[in-house]
């Protein structure tokens, strides 16, 4: 009897130790995945600089994109047009979607009755899950012909179309983050503002929005990260012309669309694929930068709140 109890206790102790080790390994292992991805990308992406001897300046700022699809190299790897394409489409998406995001978030938290809010919020969140190719397909079959109809543009495939598709895609991300941040503003602050005779708009503009600034910026950064990394939906509507995005109504290319369309055909170990890997590395570094920014932002607002 005592023996059986001692055995059970010993077994529980052993299980406890094993479980702790296994669980910790899984936790650390999960955290290592992004590092592993980063290491692989570094390994492949730096070939452009060390094996094919291009300078970082050429990659970032030159507009001559003509890498040779051989292991000898000798081409040009200026990716500035893809970088600028990515930046322009993201900025455009943000400009198009931000007013809608903010007004929807304000409507949800400040104006709508709880019942309306319970209807709208799931609807908005539903849209984070819609596959990007579906957005792309609708963009291709509906938006592109529509834009060709109302704007003077040769193809319809354009920076503007990409911006519109991305705007719809990042809308739920920014809206939910902004609405959460606004809902977290203490109710007493609003009541104090109303008590001083402020109207609802004045309360929103002077109390709620400034207080929720941190959360809104976090939402914007997450939305930008999503827009920057989106590949196929953009590729379907931007036209994929390897030129600088000089006009809203003309096709262009982004980092992701270039990778999506050219990686399959590029020779493994060649200069072309090395340049594409460097672009993937750039995307990785940018998303790491975004997360870092969010952490800095949160820490800054935590410090302010602790005062």
């Amino acid at each position, binding site marked *: 009897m005592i023996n059986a109890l001692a055995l059970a206790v010993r077994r529980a102790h052993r*299980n406890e130790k094993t479980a702790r080790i296994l669980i910790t390994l899984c936790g650390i292992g999960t*955290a290592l995945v992004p590092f592993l991805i980063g290491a692989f990308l570094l390994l492949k992406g730096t070939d452009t600089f060390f094996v094919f001897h291009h300078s970082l300046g050429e990659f970032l700022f030159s507009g001559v994109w003509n890498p040779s699809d051989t292991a000898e190299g000798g081409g040009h790897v200026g990716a500035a047009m893809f970088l600028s394409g990515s930046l322009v489409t993201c900025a455009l998406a943000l400009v198009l979607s931000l007013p809608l995001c903010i007004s929807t978030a304000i409507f949800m938290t400040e104006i709508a009755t709880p019942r309306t809010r319970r209807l709208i919020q799931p609807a908005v969140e539903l849209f984070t899950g819609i596959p*990007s190719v579906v957005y792309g397909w609708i963009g291709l079959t509906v938006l592109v012909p529509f834009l060709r109809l109302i704007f003077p543009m040769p193809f319809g495939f354009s920076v503007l179309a990409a911006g519109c598709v991305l705007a719809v895609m990042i*809308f739920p991300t920014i809206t939910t983050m902004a609405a959460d941040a606004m809902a977290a503003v203490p109710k007493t602050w609003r009541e104090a503002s109303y008590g001083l005779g402020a109207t609802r708009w*004045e309360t929103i503009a002077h109390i709620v929005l400034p207080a929720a600034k941190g959360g809104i910026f976090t939402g914007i950064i997450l939305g930008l990260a999503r827009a920057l990394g989106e590949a196929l939906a953009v590729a379907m509507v931007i036209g994929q012309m390897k030129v600088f995005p000089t006009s809203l109504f003309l096709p262009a290319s982004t980092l992701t669309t270039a990778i999506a369309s050219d990686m399959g055909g590029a020779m493994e170990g060649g200069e072309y694929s090395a340049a594409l890997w460097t672009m993937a590395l750039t995307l990785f570094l940018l998303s790491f930068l975004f997360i870092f920014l969010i952490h800095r932002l949160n820490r800054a607002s935590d410090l302010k709140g602790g005062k």
Partner: protein
Amino acid sequence: MTSLAQKKRSDSIMTALFVGGAGFAVVLLVAFVGFVIIQGVEGMTPEMLSFGPHGLGDMFFNTVYLVVLALVGSMITGIPAGIFLAEYAGNGKVTHWVRMAIETLASLPSIVVGLFGYLAFIVMTGSQWNLFAGALAVSILTLPLVTSVTEDALRNLPDSYRQGSLGLGASHWQTIWNILLPACFPRIMTGLIMAAGRGFGEAAALMFTAGMSTDIDWTNWDITSSSCPLNPFRPGETLALHIWALRTEALHPDAVQMASASSAILMIMVVSFSLAARWLSWRIDKKMGGSK
């Protein structure tokens, strides 16, 4: 100084603007879903729904099979990782880095994960494009979601659960395994359903891993054969990837209808999974709220 009338007017103007903006956004979104489903269902023919070279059935099967494999993958590492963050990790530097790494993973572009999968699971193992590699890539994408859902579920349990179990003499692990995990099972389930919804629509990560071709023979059940439906080491195109492929391929005369039908099927799957997750979490909240 602004007069009262002016203040009231600007207040109603701004309110109207916000209501208008929100209304526009919601109408746009609902119209979008409705349009995709109606357009797809209208163009559907019985042949499209069949299994075989001209139907979408094979792609549908590939999608479901791949997502199931991916979910198993992200459960095996994601749930323990969530337990680690909620139960074992302290508040030190390491935990901070683990958290930051998982957040970075969540915001990685799926095409970057796809490229990683191509390098790690296809090139380095010297294999052909296969479903298993695709499932691994998707499981990397859903891993952060599963981890954070598990962590949140564990953290949201009442402390009395832990105290009761520990007070009866159970060890920490016995508490987790016998009390905490069963109690947060529905919440983890909700997270898995959400993850499945994301997996259905994933395409960019699969371009270079799962491949863009399907060749399966529904009469062949020898799992080692490359045409057996259940063999995970065969190439398999999913519905989402099929839409992307149809954009350029003109192999089928009815490519547009096919892509619309695929979009509709995907949309219905995603919407129903998201509604299921919502319904489940609504039920949990009601149950938890009621037992208070």
